[in-house]
């Protein structure tokens, strides 16, 4: 079955082509059938490959498709590397992708761009699959750019609304800034290793660079530049501001792209390159710092947001920060575990939020919701499961992955563990604030909205239920030894992640681990109780009059004014430079140059016009003189 693996990205590609050409003619049913069917086909093929891979010896398989670029010494083939890491990512992409396609077929019902939506979604799945399946950095980069493009297309999906277009542009431009770093990293990789192929690079790296001589400049440069690309794609400080604005797109898009798949591309890239990163501990330290800073920073902003999608967006940025935090600590498999569990519960919560918004006839402000658990029971229960998962309450998925991250942090430094725990406290608080404001209390919306409140149709609730089941049981894939499990994920990924050459794994004794687990669960329960007291019992609702906020709330509500800071630091100087270039270089120099040529021609014409005065004797005179001159020159002056 592995020989048919090229079908996996091909089916959605065919879907994309069909849907983009039939954009005006296909009915909603046909579009949904093509869109969902292609992803279902990919998922089935991936699942069968995965099962057969499990029973084998977990060896990586390289599937060559065709020679892509060969110019001189560069030989890049379009080929796939199928190993445990890429297969797990493919399962997540096609599996959750299919659920979201199914959800979208009901959510986007009645939208005039229905077919276009599914064509973009299929294109996104193609690009994301290329990204994770590629066997060299160039195929990964092709997918990297593709997902950036689809993100732009889908965020600005309702293109008649200008602020949405601005959000789409912002996402694409910030992605591209990161991509510049990525490209420079690629160039350095080629200069150092002479190839882009993963297997060749990762076997050559320990030979070229002595494993005892870490932190060589070139390795730091490569890994840091690749990480800059990851900050753009995965929304870390300083390139994260596009993600909250990206909530302008349809909610299933936010679930797929900005929770489960695209934003995890940076983390996938670093896990894939773990051999290189293990050779540059300085970069890993930087990644740890940025990761935890982003985690806490975004969590604080999420504490006071009132738009349900914005809370989830900042939560995503914060959780991505945790994943980078884990990567920087050298716990690559833990970061991947968190990618997987996060995909489950964040996609679940985004889809749940979509269900709520759908029921509230488009209202997204939580101040106008309340008491929805009676009218939307399935949404409520599944959303609650997702929230319990993100808060890290056992036995839900988030507990295992988050706890592994905190344990790895404690093994390096208790301070890092403390910071991680702080972020977890904030996370629990604002997620349960969301739940209590939305689903408990009295309904605070208009009576029109109250009439429309209804549970969503099966196409929307069944994905919710499936994701809820995954959020509940998905954590069992990585039960640590201390709790009696075998940490299946860690051993499954062992073929990709180099545990010997990696950062030294600190082993904590069981008593410490139990204490850490108890601490995080205890803290989470305390925060739930506090949130319940504030929003459930006292029924506090954030004020609708934003001028009444006190100073700290204003700071957080306005996202620390980072957008305004970037505007002053980068956007305005750029516009100024652009105006300057236009007025001086464009108008004066270039236009002047081109106009001067035209003027010169005219002037020359005026001067030469004198020669044609109509007098034949003048012409004759000139002819004679000219011939004489020519003959004199030839005879006397041009002598070889």
């Amino acid at each position, binding site marked *: 079955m592995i020989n048919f693996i090229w079908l996996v990205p091909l089916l959605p590609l065919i879907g994309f082509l069909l849907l983009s050409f039939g954009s005006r003619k296909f009915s909603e049913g046909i579009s949904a059938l093509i869109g969902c069917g292609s992803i279902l086909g990919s998922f089935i093929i991936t699942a069968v490959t995965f099962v057969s891979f499990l029973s084998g010896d977990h060896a990586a398989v390289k599937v060559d498709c065709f020679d892509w670029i060969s110019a001189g010494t560069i030989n890049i083939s379009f080929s796939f590397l199928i190993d445990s890491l890429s297969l797990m990512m493919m399962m997540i992409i096609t599996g959750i992708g299919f659920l979201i396609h199914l959800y979208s077929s009901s959510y986007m019902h009645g939208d005039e761009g229905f077919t276009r939506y599914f064509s973009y979604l299929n294109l996104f799945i193609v690009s994301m699959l290329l990204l994770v399946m590629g066997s060299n950095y160039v195929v990964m980069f092709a997918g990297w750019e593709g997902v950036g493009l689809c993100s732009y297309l889908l965020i600005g999906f309702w293109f008649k609304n200008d602020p949405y277009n601005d959000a789409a542009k912002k996402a694409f431009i910030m992605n591209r800034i990161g991509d510049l770093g990525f490209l420079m990293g690629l160039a350095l990789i080629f200069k150092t290793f002479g190839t882009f192929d993963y297997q060749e690079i990762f076997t050559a790296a320990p030979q070229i660079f002595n494993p005892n001589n870490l932190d060589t400049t070139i390795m730091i440069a490569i890994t840091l530049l690749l990480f800059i690309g990851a900050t753009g794609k995965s929304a870390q400080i300083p390139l994260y501001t596009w993600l909250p604005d990206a909530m302008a797109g349809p909610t299933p898009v936010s679930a797929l792209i900005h929770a489960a798949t695209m934003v995890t591309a940076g983390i996938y890239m670093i896990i894939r390159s773990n051999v290189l990163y293990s050779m540059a501990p300085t970069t890993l330290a930087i990644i740890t710092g940025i990761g935890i800073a982003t985690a806490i920073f975004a969590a604080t902003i999420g504490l006071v947001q009132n738009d349900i999608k914005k809370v989830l967006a900042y939560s995503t940025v914060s959780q991505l920060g945790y994943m980078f935090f884990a990567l920087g600590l050298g716990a690559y498999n833990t970061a991947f575990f968190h990618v997987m569990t996060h995909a489950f519960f964040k996609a679940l919560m985004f889809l749940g939020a979509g269900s709520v918004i759908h029921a509230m006839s488009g209202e997204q402000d939580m101040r106008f919701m309340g008491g929805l658990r009676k009218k939307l029971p399935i949404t409520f229960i599944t959303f609650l499961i997702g929230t319990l998962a993100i808060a890290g309450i056992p036995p839900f998925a988030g507990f295992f992955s988050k706890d592994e991250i905190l344990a790895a942090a404690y093994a390096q430094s208790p301070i890092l563990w403390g910071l991680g725990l702080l972020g977890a406290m904030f996370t629990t608080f604002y997620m349960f604030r969301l739940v209590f404001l939305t689903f408990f209390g009295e309904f605070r919306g208009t009576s029109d909205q109250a009439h429309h409140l209804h549970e969503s149709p099966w196409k929307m609730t069944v994905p919710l239920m499936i994701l809820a089941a995954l959020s509940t049981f998905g954590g069992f894939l990585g039960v640590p030894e201390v709790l009696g499990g075998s940490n299946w994920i860690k051993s499954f990924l062992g073929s990709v992640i180099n545990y010997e050459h990696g950062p030294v794994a600190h082993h904590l004794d069981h008593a410490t681990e139990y204490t850490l687990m108890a601490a995080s669960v205890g803290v989470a329960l305390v925060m739930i109780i506090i949130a319940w007291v504030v929003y459930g019992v006292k029924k506090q609702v954030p004020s609708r009059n934003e001028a009444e906020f006190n100073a700290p709330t204003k700071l957080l509500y306005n996202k620390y004014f980072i957008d305004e800071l970037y505007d002053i630091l980068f956007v305005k100087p750029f516009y100024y430079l652009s105006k300057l270039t236009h007025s001086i270089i464009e108008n004066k120099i270039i236009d002047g140059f081109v106009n001067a040529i035209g003027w010169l021609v005219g002037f020359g014409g005026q001067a030469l016009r004198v020669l*044609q*005065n*109509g007098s034949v*004797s003048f012409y*004759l005179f000139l002819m004679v003189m000219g011939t004489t001159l020519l003959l004199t020159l030839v005879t006397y002056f041009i002598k070889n």
Partner: protein
Amino acid sequence: MNSFLPELTNVYFNYLLLSSVLFCIGVIGVIIRKNIIIIFMSIELMLNAVNLLLVNFSNMHNDPNGQVFVFFIMVVAAAEVTVGLAILVMVYRNSGSVNIDTLKNLKG
């Protein structure tokens, strides 16, 4: 002057000198005269001067090619005169004068 023009004390030099003088007279006639017919005559004079020169050189080098070329030039001169005089007649019919400065409609 001596290095400029090697003086041949033979008869060939005389023909060369005569041919050059005729040619120069022809050129001056083309430049100076105002009557179109005189200008045509000067052109003919130039052509004939060249013919004389060619025959002279052909004799000097004992090469018949020069005289053959003279026939060609005569043919061309005849054809050209035909056309030129035809144009002259038309110009005279339209403007009533054979002054070369009559057709000056193209302003400078």
